[in-house]
């Protein structure tokens, strides 16, 4: 089967398997970290335009905590784990074993907890994709930012647009059953690196 590299013919179905495998593992990692069951509520792969980009994680002027990292190796791109501030505080409490409501702002230790959450979720996603497709995908250390959704997304989009006209996003939504806790996980692979990963996917015996 010839693989057409033009982005207009980009084959999302090849990546859907990788995204699913990566996402399941990513959620497993987070679940282990907070010792709670986590449910995937939605998984999508889409080409995103600048116009609908901020809708990826919320309203443009909503406050959001984003844990951001880059990845490189066989493929490169960006990863962002996003939570509303209140959710981020609750996750910190869960991870640290402190009573709910203890964390009310993000000091150094709290940011470190969230950074570690980003590290685990990001690494687990990359590990599953890498092992499945025989690749090497290395995450950077994470950065924790709390700011407006519009600003966070525009920074991520600007970075993606530096490399490519089209921006491709894997978006995972998840929640903790029985609690008002939900989050989003975005993976934005750099377009021209997709060919390596998805060609390897093609070559895997299944």
């Amino acid at each position, binding site marked *: 089967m010839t693989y057409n590299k033009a982005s207009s013919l980009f084959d999302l179905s090849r990546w859907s398997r990788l995204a699913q495998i990566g996402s399941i593992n990513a959620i497993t*990692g987070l679940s*282990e*970290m907070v010792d709670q069951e986590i449910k995937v509520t939605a998984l999508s792969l889409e080409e995103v335009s600048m116009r609908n980009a901020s809708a990826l994680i919320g309203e443009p002027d909503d406050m959001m905590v984003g844990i951001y990292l880059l990845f490189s190796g066989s493929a490169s791109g960006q990863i962002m784990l996003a939570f509303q501030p209140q959710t981020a505080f609750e996750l910190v409490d869960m*991870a*640290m074993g402190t009573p709910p409501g203890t964390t009310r702002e993000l000091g*150094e*230790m709290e940011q*470190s*907890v969230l*950074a*570690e959450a980003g*590290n*685990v979720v990001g*690494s*687990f996603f*990359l*590990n599953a994709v*890498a*092992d499945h497709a025989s690749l*090497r*995908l*290395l*995450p*950077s*250390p994470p950065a924790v930012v709390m700011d407006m959704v519009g600003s966070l997304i525009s920074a991520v989009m600007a970075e993606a647009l530096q490399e490519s006209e089209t921006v491709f996003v894997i978006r995972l939504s998840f929640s903790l059953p029985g609690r008002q806790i939900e989050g989003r996980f975005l993976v934005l692979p750099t377009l021209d690196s997709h060919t390596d990963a998805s060609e390897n996917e093609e070559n895997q015996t299944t």
Partner: protein
Amino acid sequence: MAKILLVDDAAFMRMRCAKLLAEKGYDVLEAANGVEAVQEYQRSKPDGVLLDITMPEMDGIATLKKLVEIDPEAKVVMVTAMGQQSMVIEALKSGAKDFVVKPFDANRVLSAVEKLVA
């Protein structure tokens, strides 16, 4: 009791590990990145090292190689979320004695440390 050096850029992880080990009577030292880890290793000669991979300045694999270069007998266990097959292989080949994936099970870490310093 044995002296263990914890290397991780996340203060939260260092705190968690330190608590776990201190409760079992180990002396705990900490470093936040590879550069600090090498300095601390040379200064304090710990009996074992728990080493993260994804860190700024010098990643865990580079740190591992440096530690083994300084001390071929260095006893290092990788403790990291970066558990890809290629990474595990590289770490073991570069001299790590064990490889624990984060988020870790407390008993897994404790038994890895016990075996390390035995």
